[in-house]
């Protein structure tokens, strides 16, 4: 959770009076809150941290960072199967009810 990952805004809507977006992180799409970056629009790139857009970023920088993160496995660390990773690291069985839900589009 420590990192902030750049992504592309593909949809914007108001939900419970809060501005929300769907953001594409190189194939993984997540709901992102735009409360702290209200002027962002569809097509813009933004740096997202734990589901919140925190600053704008130019497209070239965003794509470069995304490619780097993908090649280093950071995208999987951020969006992947956290229980599976924890189980592997602990050398233990995955706890019941933690099977991953497919998020890649």
């Amino acid at each position, binding site marked *: *959770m*420590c*990192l*902030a990952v750049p992504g592309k805004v593909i949809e914007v809507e108001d939900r*419970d009076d*809060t501005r929300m977006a769907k953001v594409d992180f190189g194939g993984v799409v*997540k*709901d992102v*809150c735009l*409360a*702290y*970056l*209200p002027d962002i629009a569809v097509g813009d790139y933004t*740096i997202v*941290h*734990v*589901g*919140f857009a*925190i*600053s704008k*970023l*130019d497209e070239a*920088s965003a794509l*470069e*960072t995304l*490619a*780097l993160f993908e090649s*280093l*496995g950071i*995208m*999987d*660390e951020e*969006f*992947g*199967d*956290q*229980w*599976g*990773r*924890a*189980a*592997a*690291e*602990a*050398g*233990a*069985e995955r*706890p019941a009810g*933690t099977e*991953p839900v497919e998020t*890649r589009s």
Partner: protein
Amino acid sequence: MKYIDEFNDPDLAKRLLDDIHATVTRPWALMEVCGGQTHSIIRHGIDQLLPSQVELIHGPGCPVCVTPLETIDKALEIASRPGVVFCSFGDMLRVPGSGKDLFRVKSAGGDVRVVYSPLDALKIAKENPEKQVVFFGIGFETTAPPNAMTVHQAKRLGITNFSMLVSHVRVPPAIEAIMTSPTCRVQGFLAAGHVCSVMGTQEYPALAERFEVPIVVTGFEPLDILEGIRRTVKQLEEGRHELENAYARAVPAEGNPAARAMLADVFEVTDRAWRGIGVIPGSGWRLSEAYREFDAEHRFSVEGITTQESSACRAGEVLQGLIKPHQCEAFGKECTPRNPLGATMVSSEGACAAYYLYRRLGGTPAPAREAAPVG
């Protein structure tokens, strides 16, 4: 140069490194206060590409690692209670408390859930009004605004079965504590880029001035880190101590004003203990009076839990830059990612984990990651 081909622009990396080599004339110790930067440095061998005079000290920049043991024990206590859904970022699952961790609580039947965003926890609360839903709100200034917004939304929407176990930390008081420590060796700081994306840079010039120490706001990618180091070394060699922003593409000087306003509303500054280090005055945030009803410590009456940290774990010295991870006697022996003594061996941002995964010293080559790639 063994790692340089892995940089996304090896030519630029070489130019930056050549410049650093040409500039440096004497020894300098720089500290990064960001777990993401620590991992990038070790993963890419940046410290090994630098002139021998430039030492990188890995500071207390991993929020998972500095969350006090006592707070982990409170989390484990709350998560074990019936009727509670305990939501956390995935990084916290294996952080050891006094006897167990969240992973084991889940295996024993506790309802622990990993969420991507604190708003996901609020959604779970909304959909499960008969449950008490608790979110583990840890992190530096970058993570505090999302958590603040979530509590604000809970109050606005009247979601009263939601609460937060808050353990937020702030970088500037930590820099102050490091610089006033009698064992301090730090002569320059790489400040964490995304912390400054939120907070801006205005807290740092006074620190640079007071402690006569250059502070350079730096990004996370290998080239960003080289540029941050280059600018810090240049200042040191020229006898300057200023705040510089080497990550301007993501850090406006004023930060994010909307996020800062929300922080000021929902949180108030408090003293905070850092795991392995102790209490640093004014270094944390807790919920302000107006939001105290959402404080999980109060709701579940766990304020009384106090615990002692293990003496075998030297994470505190690692976090203060007094020793490198492999200089701890337990490193790679009693303490591994599978059986961690401290949080720094668990978190993907922890310095001990970084050394273990990418540079296991003492004769054995770095092992393959224990966890298979997932996703």
